[in-house]
């Protein structure tokens, strides 16, 4: 049996708890260092299938500014961030837009990953 420690910094909140994940033959045994229950969840996820959310912008017509900020409602696998970005950038919005408006449902075929507007923009 080989026990292995992997270190992570939790990114669930600005606290940034230093986490240690202990595995035995690739099987997760325990997580320590977290100050809340999101820490263990994060370390396990990060060890087996790291995921991230991010914000980006899409072009908007007829609004005060040229760009509308959008965000993901759920994380995508870390290695698909650029694919996700590319897909989102194909979108175009036309003012008016309400905050929370869903532009893409199931981004990259991923269930529950929607692209939504981060703000409302009036038509000008």
């Amino acid at each position, binding site marked *: 049996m080989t026990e292995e420690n992997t270190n992570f910094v939790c990114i669930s909140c600005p606290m940034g708890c230093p986490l240690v994940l202990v595995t035995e033959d690739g099987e997760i045994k325990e997580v320590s260092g977290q100050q809340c229950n999101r820490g263990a969840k994060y370390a396990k996820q990060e060890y087996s299938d790291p995921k*991230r959310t991010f914000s980006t912008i899409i072009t908007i017509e007829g609004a005060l500014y040229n760009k509308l*900020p959008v965000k993901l409602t759920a994380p995508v696998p870390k290695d698909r961030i650029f694919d996700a*970005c590319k897909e989102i950038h194909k979108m175009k919005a036309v003012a008016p837009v309400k905050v929370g408006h869903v532009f893409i449902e199931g981004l990259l075929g991923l269930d529950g990953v929607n692209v939504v507007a*981060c703000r409302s923009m009036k038509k000008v």
Partner: protein
Amino acid sequence: MLGRMNKSYDCVIIGGGPAGMAAAMGAMDTGVSDILVVERDPEPGGILRQCIHSGFGLHYFKEELTGPEYAERFLEKMIDNDVDVVSNSYVSGISIDSDGSKQVRILHPKAGLSSIRCKSVVLAMGCRERTRGAIRIPGSRPAGVLSAGLAQKFVNMNGYLPGKKIAILGSGDIGLIMARRLVLEGCEVVGVFEMMPYSNGLTRNVVQCLDDFNIPLHLSTTVARVHGRDRVSHITVAPVDEKFNIIKEKAWDVDCDTLLLSVGLIPENELSEKIGVALDVITSGPRVSSSMETTMSGVFACGNVLHVHDLVDFVTEEALSAGRYAGEYARGTRRPADSIELVPGQNVRYCVPHTLSPEREHTVYMRATQRMQPCLLRVGNLLEKKLRFVVPAEMINLKIKPDLLDKFRGEHLTIDLIPLDDDKKMEA
């Protein structure tokens, strides 16, 4: 409502960012209804509008929001409550009448120069970025050197990229977040350079903004020279010694066409200086009492104009309180002067507010002068609290209850941060 402006108000709030919007809500809580928010940009929301990443609202809303979402929640409340907002407008001065009421001079694109009478004023003008001039980077003066927040506005609101190959000086959160944003929008980020031996940003931002994209972070390293005639062609970077002197022999060149600077923020207090409120030399913001009142009666201050915050949630909390005191003042409440002066002691760079009153609960905001892990926060001989980890970039906030101050008989209360050697001592 947006764009409407009367001749007189209970309360005029200067700045429509997170501080100004929360101050308006705070004033409303006290029952005043005539509130005007003056905003320089075409719409309220302030810097939150360009901070499109998430991480806002964990304290205040108990959920993680992006900057624009956080701003919109307050904007909706303001509109629902009929707070007047004038945008594209600028306050050029404030004068005091013999009866104590204030005249705020506002430059408005349609109304021209108008004078608005009000009972109280809240300063909520925010802060601006330090520039290349402020840190005196030698070299030529080509295009392509700009502050990180300006680049953030260009990218996130206007959709302009500042360049193709980007170097970033300063590892504060704005610098780190811009590194990721630029990579996601198709730029190459060649490195982040930080003069201090540690990052000034949150560790989670180092992880998710730099490590995730293999962007190198060079600690104890700074930009020694900018090269290029019309456009930045490259920069020379060099490690620094313990006294932050450049080690020339170890310098190297980095190819880039753009240099972003994330090297600190300065409260924007030209107006405060003009009207003669006393400023604190350390925070560069007004000196305020425990009711967030400046040295000028009826003029209050909150948010980044008072001292630079790192979390908007704390700006909101502080501004709600400043707005409440400004609202109370407009309704005629006058509180007795504070009796206790707060003194930043050992390893404390500053604390805000500057004075306290034993009459009510206070939140004191402070910053450490150095990184300490762990340390002891000591408030005179009244209170001791162990802190796991302090760093100058992260503000410390402390609630002080009135019964604690009841026991205090002095005029000066000193706050110290004392480093503890190890965990064993911490338990002792």
